[in-house]
């Protein structure tokens, strides 16, 4: 799949933002005054920046409001609802923290749960797609949720954040291992795609068109897969291992900032791989495996 920068930025930033908002909502930090303002602004900033980045992926964004209508069937529509509901419900909690209004924490807890639900709906947009076998697995939402929880725990300075970061590394390793065998397990070949397996073994004789098209650009992305192994090591080190180690050092808030920057870079690399390595079955018609 084409690793569109807008979608990579969207899912990475908003995942981290909603993860952090969840911890703020749950009252992990209980900041007040200016500190509360800056922390909530960071959470909202990441989440909203991610959502804005996502609108750049749309070919026709003027209809964007219609995306709220199909929540009964569409995970993308559910994501729209969950994200807006989270941002609205947590807003009074943020104001209460900043101005010490003493709003009941229950609202924050509901908002925090909604923030995690938002990340789950994002993950399900990809998980539901059977035509991309690598994504169509329960480890996909596990990966998105672990990213959000580990990132949120890290930003809110939880003592067990390093453990969650290391768990994230394990999830990434599992996802890559399962994902590498996913296409073969789905069992689709050029033979099943064309039905010509009932005759013999088909192969591409001549391309259907000599120029590029939307399908090839969007779904048959192959550039850069040769660096996949190296990028996986980079993603694992930056997103998981290094920030976990840095958080163990007595660096205070600077340690968290450094760990967060490294983690974000690693998350971007992991998310790039999530798209670039995902093979769509339509590639079979073009003689590519994906």
């Amino acid at each position, binding site marked *: *799949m084409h690793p569109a920068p807008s979608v990579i930025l969207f899912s990475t930033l908003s995942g981290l933002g909603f993860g952090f908002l969840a911890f703020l909502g749950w009252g992990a930090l209980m900041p007040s005054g200016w500190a509360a303002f800056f922390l909530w602004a960071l959470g909202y900033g990441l989440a909203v920046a991610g959502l804005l980045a996502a609108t750049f*992926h*749309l*070919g*026709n*964004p003027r*209809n*964007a409001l*219609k*995306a*709220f*209508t*199909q929540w*009964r*069937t*569409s*995970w*993308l*529509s559910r994501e*729209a609802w969950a994200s807006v509901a989270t941002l609205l419900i947590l807003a009074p909690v943020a104001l209460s923290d900043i101005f010490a209004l003493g709003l009941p924490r229950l609202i924050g807890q509901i908002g925090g749960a909604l923030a995690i639900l938002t990340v789950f709906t994002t993950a399900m*947009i990809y998980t*539901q*797609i*059977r*035509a*991309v076998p690598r994504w169509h697995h329960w480890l996909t939402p596990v990966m998105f949720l672990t990213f959000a929880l580990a990132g949120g725990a890290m930003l809110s300075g939880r003592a067990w954040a390093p453990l969650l970061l290391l768990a994230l590394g394990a999830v990434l390793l599992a996802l890559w291992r399962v994902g590498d065998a996913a296409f073969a397990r*789905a*069992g*689709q070949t*050029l033979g*099943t*795609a*064309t*039905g*010509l397996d*009932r*005759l*013999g*073994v*088909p*192969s*591409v*004789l*001549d*391309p*259907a*068109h000599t*120029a*590029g*098209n*939307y*399908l090839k650009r*969007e*779904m048959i992305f192959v550039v850069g897969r040769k660096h996949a192994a190296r990028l996986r090591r980079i993603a694992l080190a930056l997103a998981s291992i290094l920030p976990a180690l840095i958080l163990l050092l007595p660096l205070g808030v600077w340690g968290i900032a450094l760990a967060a920057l490294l983690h974000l870079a690693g998350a971007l690399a992991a998310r790039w791989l999530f798209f670039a390595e995902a093979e*769509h*079955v*339509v590639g079979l*018609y*073009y003689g590519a495996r994906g």
Partner: protein
Amino acid sequence: MTALPQTTARKLGLVIDLDTCVGCQACVTACKGWNDAGIGLSDQDPYGADPSGTFLNRVHSYQVAIPDAPAQVVTFPRSCLHCDNAPCVTVCPTGASYKRAEDGIVLVNEDACIGCGLCAWACPYGAREMDADQGVMKKCTLCVDRIYNETLPEEDREPACVRTCPTNARHFGDLADPDSAVSRLVAERQGYDLMPDMGTKPTNKYLPPRKKGPGDASPLAPLLDIKATGIAGWLDRMLGKL
């Protein structure tokens, strides 16, 4: 509404005969022509060095290696299969993508499309292409603007690809009716679904290429046995002795 209808009264679709298709691309051209005039299918840099464009129908060509027989070339038209269980419909966040309860045609309401591309991701068959100029999704409409169009002569009320096909490799009809010509064709010729394991339950069916039987070693083989006579025979013997 992106919920799929429980049942559709009719299942209009295509039956494509891979034994008859010669890969002439007439269906590609007719489809592009009709639908460019209708919904618009833009091209980018069409006369330049790097052309690209939106098509609702593409014809691939494959060679099939067959044990104990010569390889066979199969040309393979690929377009929307108007699936009963269309994954492209349920993923749509705006309701732009829908399947009609009355005839099973899967359509895009471009006025509601946000161009997110998720339906194209959900389709295993590559049936949907985003129009780069309009920013909305395009797909086969089964020429819904022809098949019910009473201003057209009756013989033209079928999809442009079917109407134009010079070898009659494309057939249009109601696959829910077991007595329709297309349903009988599917029954007689063992018509099949593409990637049935994807769970999409396609309406369109493909008819397999017929086996051409064990091939002769070479069409020129009998010529190798010619015995020369007369002067040629004498030359043949003399040259053989040299």
